[in-house]
Each structure stands twice: as C-alpha cells, then as structure tokens.
C-alpha cells in the first residue's frame, strides 16, 4: 500500500504553481502574524515576508545544494514559476494602474527632482559599495546599485541585463534593508530633517522610494503625511525599472566595462 504522504507529495509536485500559491500564502500569513505580535506593526508584514523568503531560499540551498533556493525542492518547484520573471513583471506593471496623469502633474517639479535624486543617489551608493567589495563587473554593480533603490528595481534590472542569482539575491537584500530601515528610523529622524509638512513628505517619498517603507515610516511619524509621501514613492520603482537597465547600465558599462 502507498504511503498517504507520498500521495500528497505527488499531488504537490503535479500542481506546482498552485502549491506555490498556498505555500506563499501561508508564508505571508505567518509574516503578518510576526509583524503584528512581535514587532507591534513597527516592521510591515510585507518586509518580514520577503525576509522570510530569503531565509527559506537559504535553507532550500542548504537542503538541496542547488542554486534556485526553495524551488529546488521538488514539492516547491512552483515557487520558481510564481517568482519567475514572467509573473513578476506582470504583477509589477500592474502596480502602476492606480496612477493618474493629473496626479503626476499636480505633484510638480519638486517631486520630479526628488525622484531623480533619490533613484540616482541610491544607485550610486549601491554601485560604489558593490565595487568596494569586489563586485566590479558592470552587470553586478548595476544590479546591486539598482537594489539599493528598491528590492524590485534590483531584480528587474538584474534579470534584464543577465545578472547571476546570487547577485540578484544581494540586490533584493539591499532593498529590503533599505525598506526596513526607512520604516523604523523615520520617526526618530523626522524632527532633524523637517519632515513635518506635506511638502517635505512629498520630497521624502520621492527620495526614499520604497513604498512600504515610506508608508510605514510616515504612519509612525504622522499619519496625515502618508498620502503625500506615497504619491511620489509610487513613481519611484517605475522610474528605477526604466533607468536601471538603460541609462545606469550603459553609464556603468562605459566607466567600468
């Protein structure tokens, strides 16, 4: 007679993508539980979920010796499809849907300048750190620099220019560190940088760009400022995905290629 667990495993393997939906749903649920109970909402559930994803990928690598994290475990192979470039790009592009052109015009020149300064500044910092630590090829420098923008810009850029998975993992981690730091440090830093009015919140959102970090950080500072910061931050990832694999990559390749 066959072991029921083997039968279950077989069902999981045969329905990989659906298994991934269930598994990731469970992961996200646990993360929001941790966020609420242990960090009292200070660190947003989404950041904990991504951190948990990286930890699981590490454990998957340890268990299988493979290079695809959790996706190398046969019953979780569907995670590789769900987190692959095709589904990922579809979901990321969908986030641009709420944006209205009138809102872009209303945000004005200050928002545009802060967005450009934010993306460029983070990118330069990330690429410099990468270079200092020996990640000196243009593809890795660009990918890690893009990761310092957000944990989306990094992997989107990395995939577009052909970075290796470990470098992409680093770019996600860099963006995650940024997001979590923005969430937690903003209320303490706010008095020193004049973050107490809509205009500075608009600039702050454009400079930081991590939407979860900005929303969390401003909510802890002054909830009335959240919509202003979120308005500019919405454009950040899109701008980063546009500039990362184009202007930035070409510039880095010109200088270090």
């Amino acid at each position, binding site marked *: 007679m066959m072991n029921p667990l083997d039968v279950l495993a077989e069902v999981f393997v045969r329905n990989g993508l659906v298994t991934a939906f269930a598994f990731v749903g469970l992961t996200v649920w646990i993360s929001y539980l941790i966020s609420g109970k242990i960090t009292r909402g200070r660190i947003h559930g989404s950041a904990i979920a*991504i951190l948990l994803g990286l930890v699981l990928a590490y454990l998957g690598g340890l268990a299988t010796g493979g290079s695809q994290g959790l996706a190398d475990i046969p019953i979780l192979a569907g995670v590789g499809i769900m987190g692959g470039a095709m589904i990922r790009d579809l979901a990321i592009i969908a986030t641009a849907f709420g944006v209205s052109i009138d809102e872009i015009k209303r945000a004005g020149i200050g928002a545009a300048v802060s967005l450009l300064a934010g993306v460029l500044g*983070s990118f330069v910092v990330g690429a410099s750190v990468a270079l200092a630590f020996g990640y000196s090829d243009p593809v890795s420098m660009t990918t890690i620099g893009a990761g310092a*923008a957000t944990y989306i810009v990094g992997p989107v850029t990395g995939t577009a220019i052909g970075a290796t998975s470990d470098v992409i993992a680093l770019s996600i981690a860099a963006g995650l560190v940024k997001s979590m730091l923005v969430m937690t440090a903003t209320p303490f830093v706010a008095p020193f940088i004049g973050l107490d009015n809509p205009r500075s919140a608009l600039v702050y959102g454009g400079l930081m760009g991590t939407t979860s970090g900005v929303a969390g950080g401003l909510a802890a500072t002054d909830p009335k400022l959240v919509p202003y910061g979120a308005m500019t931050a919405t454009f950040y990832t899109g701008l980063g995905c546009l500039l990362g694999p184009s202007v930035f990559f070409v510039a880095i390749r010109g200088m270090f290629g």
Partner: protein
Amino acid sequence: MVIYGVALLAGCMLGGLFLGDLLGVFIGVEANVGGVGLGMILLILLSDRLRKGGRLTPLTEQGVLFWSAIYIPVVVAMAAKQNVLAAVEGGPVAILSGVGAVFLSFLLVPVLTRIAKGPDEGGGP
C-alpha cells in the same frame, strides 16, 4: 469583463518588453532596456485614456487590480527562489548599500524641500 483588464495588462507588458528589447538592439547592449518601466508607462497612459473615455468598467479594473494586489506575494516567491546560499558571503554589501542609500536620502530631504518650495509657494495646508 475581467479578462479585458488582464489582457490590457498583458498587452502593456508585452509592448513594454518589446520596446525594451528593440532599445537594447538599438544601443547595442544585450539587455532588455527598461522594458518593465516602459510597460508601466504604457499602462498609465492607456488606463488614463480608457478611464476618461468611461470605458474602464469596475470589472475590467478587477482584472488589473488582482495582479497589483498579488505583487508582494510574487516578490516573496521571487526572493525564495534566489541563490541566497551563494549570496551570504556578500551580506555586508547588501547591508551597507541599503543603509548608505537611506542615510544619503535622509540628508537630502531638507535640501530638496527647500528647492521644492519654488514659485508656487503659499498654498498647502
């Protein structure tokens, strides 16, 4: 219908990636140059037009909104399939670039807020 929204989104993605590949060939890099960003721009432009023309029904919107809402879980799955084992030795790179980027951005907030004041000063709550 919901599928109209999904199809709109899919069309924007394919169009953006197509433009990105073309751009890559054009400037001579083997990369998809900004395809995802271009896809986002396409979606913003098209949905704005459709919305103003009253052709974006709530059902159509749902087809896009589902994917927008599933974005964090997809990112979690993306994180879970990376070669983190090989990346761990580079850990300090991730931490330093993240912290450095935040530090610089905090410093720039007061500077750019002053610039942002500009000519339309006077309004606002």
